[in-house]
C-alpha cells in the first residue's frame, strides 16, 4: 500500500507561547502540501488575526474570501504582505482554539501558487466565523517553508500545526 499522505512536520507550542510556528525545510518531493492548524492567540480580544506566509516572503499575497459570522454572509478581498484569517484570542471561550486548513497544489512548481484556506472559529456566543478563502501567492519559487503568526501578540500554549505532503502515486 503506497503512502500518499505523509506528515512532513508538526509543531505544538509549549508553555509560555511562541511568536510563530515555523514549518521549514519542506522537501520538493511531493505533489501538494496540506497544513492543518489549531491556534489560539494572546491578544485580549475574542477574535484576532492569523497570518500565514511562505518562504519568509513579505510580498505577493492576495486573497478573496467568503465568510459567515452567524448573522450574515459576506465576501471581501485583500492583498498585501501575508494571507490572513480570523482566529480566536484570549477573550474567547476558555480552552477553545480556532482551526484551519490550507491546501497548496503544485507547491514546488515554477508557477505562481494558488491555494485554498478554510478556517473556523467558535465561541458559544453571538458571533463566530466560518471562512473560505481563495489564495494566490504571486511568486514562482518552490515553497520551502510556511510560517503562522498571530499578527499582534503570540500563539498560546497548545497551538498546533501539522504539515502533510501528498503524492499522487
Amino acid at each position, binding site marked *: 500500500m503506497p503512502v500518499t499522505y505523509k506528515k512532513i512536520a508538526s509543531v505544538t507550542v509549549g508553555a509560555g507561547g511562541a511568536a510563530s510556528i515555523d514549518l521549514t525545510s519542506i522537501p520538493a518531493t511531493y505533489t501538494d502540501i496540506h497544513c*492543518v492548524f489549531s491556534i489560539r492567540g494572546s491578544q485580549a480580544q475574542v477574535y484576532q488575526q492569523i497570518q500565514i506566509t511562505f518562504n519568509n516572503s513579505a510580498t505577493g499575497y492576495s486573497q478573496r474570501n467568503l465568510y459567515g459570522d452567524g448573522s450574515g454572509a459576506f465576501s471581501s478581498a485583500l492583498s498585501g504582505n501575508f494571507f490572513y484569517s480570523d482566529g480566536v484570542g484570549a477573550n474567547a471561550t476558555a*480552552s*477553545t482554539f480556532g482551526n484551519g486548513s490550507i491546501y497548496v497544489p503544485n507547491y514546488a512548481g515554477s508557477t505562481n501558487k494558488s491555494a485554498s484556506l*478554510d478556517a473556523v*472559529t467558535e*465561541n458559544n456566543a453571538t458571533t463566530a466565523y*466560518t471562512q473560505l478563502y481563495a489564495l494566490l501567492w504571486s511568486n514562482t519559487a518552490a515553497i520551502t517553508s510556511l510560517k503562522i503568526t498571530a499578527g499582534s501578540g503570540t500563539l498560546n500554549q497548545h497551538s498546533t500545526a501539522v504539515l502533510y505532503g501528498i503524492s499522487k502515486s
Partner: protein
Amino acid sequence: MTATYENIATTTLGSAQTTVSFTNISQSFTDLRLVINDVKTTSSARNVFIRVGNGSIDSGSNYSHTNLGARALSATPFSDRQSNQTSGKLSWYTAATTAHPQMSVVDLLNYSNTTTNKTFISNSRTAPGDGTYSGVEVLVILWRSTSAINYLDVFTDVADSFASGSTFTLYGIKAE
C-alpha cells in the same frame, strides 16, 4: 511506512435507522474524518446532527455551531448560529430530503486530546433538484469539553430516520 488514512468503521444502512453510532473509537489517530454519503431521510427534509462523548454520549447543552452556505431557496448566501445546544448540526439549511441525497465530510480535529475543547468542521452538500434544500453548506461545531472523544452518534430530527442505503464511514488520520 504506515498508512495515515485508515478506515475505522463503515455502516451502510440496510433499513431505516434513527441513529448511527461509533463506539470505542481508537485514540491512536491525530484526527477523525466522518464521511456521510447518499443520506436520505424517510419522511421529510431534516437536519443531520452529531453528538460525541467519552464512555457515553454527551447530550448536555455543550454544543454550538455556525454555518455558511447557499441553497436553492434564495440567491443570497446565509450564515446563522446557535449556542448551548444539546447536539451539533452537520447540516442545517441544506437539509437531507427523501429524494435528494446529502453528503458531508466532517473533520474532528485533535479528537483525543484532553486539554482543549473540540472543534468539528462539516462540509455538506445536498444534491441539486430540490427547490429549497439543494445547496452547499459549511459548519463549524464546538463541543465544549476537554474530554477525549471515543463515542460518536449521528442522527436526524426526532420522528424521522435515515433511509436505507445511507452510508457512514469513520476514518482515522495519523500524523506520522
